[in-house]
């Protein structure tokens, strides 16, 4: 177990890194289960992009924290209550519509974070954001194209896509909580609304929003994910291959 020393910057970097790693892990869960081979690779590619982003952000967090922690320490040696990711990313992968809808909602918000981070005086963050912005742009386009086809597809795909949006919506509030970089919700809505309309889906109504992920109050799902992700590293401390 490690104890992190979290300045506002460290906490921000860990939060974004945790978002990327947990969502990347969720995408990796499609390996062997995707509807077609092409989409399996697409999902794995996106997952690897996110895990790569997480690694860079953990390095930046380690530098800012200056406690000698490594990427692996952050990933494998923290318990649930020390994870700073939003609840949105830890929800189980669900069906294909749920995965694509989540990716779409997340990527649309990340677009703003990456744009702002590229202007950051924190040089490592700006460099990471420049790379991540290109990866994220593809995630956004790919998930948007799928959402349109699922929504405007068969009755079943439409219903699944709408159900996914409705279930995810209460988890989108956390993406816009005040932080070192805070995306603008109105701008996000303006970005996603036309896609949701083209998909013949209904934009969910704002209601009560979930919160707590950034403070370490997580759903029961994160514990199960961490158990799977961390158990090898904890069973064999310091193991390499």
């Amino acid at each position, binding site marked *: 177990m490690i104890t992190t020393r979290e300045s506002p910057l460290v906490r921000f970097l860990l939060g974004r890194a945790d978002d990327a790693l947990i969502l990347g892990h969720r995408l990796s869960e499609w390996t062997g289960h995707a*509807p*077609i*081979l*092409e*989409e399996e*690779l*697409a999902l794995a*590619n996106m997952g690897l992009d996110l895990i790569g982003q997480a690694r860079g952000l953990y390095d930046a967090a380690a530098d800012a924290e200056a406690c000698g922690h490594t990427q692996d320490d952050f990933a494998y040696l923290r318990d649930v209550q020390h994870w700073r990711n939003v609840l949105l990313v830890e929800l189980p992968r669900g069906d294909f519509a749920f995965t694509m809808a989540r990716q779409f909602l997340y990527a649309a918000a990340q677009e703003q974070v990456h744009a702002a981070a590229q202007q950051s005086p924190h040089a490592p963050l700006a460099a990471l954001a420049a790379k991540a912005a290109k990866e994220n742009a*593809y995630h956004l*386009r*790919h998930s948007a*194209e*799928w959402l349109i*086809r699922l929504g405007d597809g068969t009755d079943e795909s439409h219903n699944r896509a709408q159900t996914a949006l409705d279930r995810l919506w209460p988890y989108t509030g956390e993406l816009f909580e005040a932080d070192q970089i805070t995306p603008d919700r109105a701008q996000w809505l303006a970005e996603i609304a036309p896609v949701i309309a083209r998909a013949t889906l209904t934009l969910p109504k704002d209601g009560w929003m979930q919160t707590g992920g950034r403070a370490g109050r997580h759903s029961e799902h994160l514990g199960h994910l961490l158990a799977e992700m961390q158990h090898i590293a904890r069973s064999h401390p310091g193991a390499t291959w």
Partner: protein
Amino acid sequence: MTTPDTQLWEVFIRSRSGLSHRHVGSVHAIDSTLALHAARDVYTRRGEGLSIWVVPSAAITASDPADKAMLFEPAESKIYRHPTFYDVPDEVGHM
């Protein structure tokens, strides 16, 4: 798992150093946009390409393998069609 509505697309990629698109394989996709995405995700993961074409496999008319002898063997004996068949006089220099 059945994928009833996915059609097959042939993928052509132009590499960094390549002048023309080369056939690299095929993907399943429900339309041309997602076929491009699939081609990107399947065939350019290691920096292979700078440009992608996708073509519905059904749009390609192929020669019949049974016609191989008729179509291609007659050319084998026409060695005079290769430029190396001809002696070029030294006076001509580099052509």
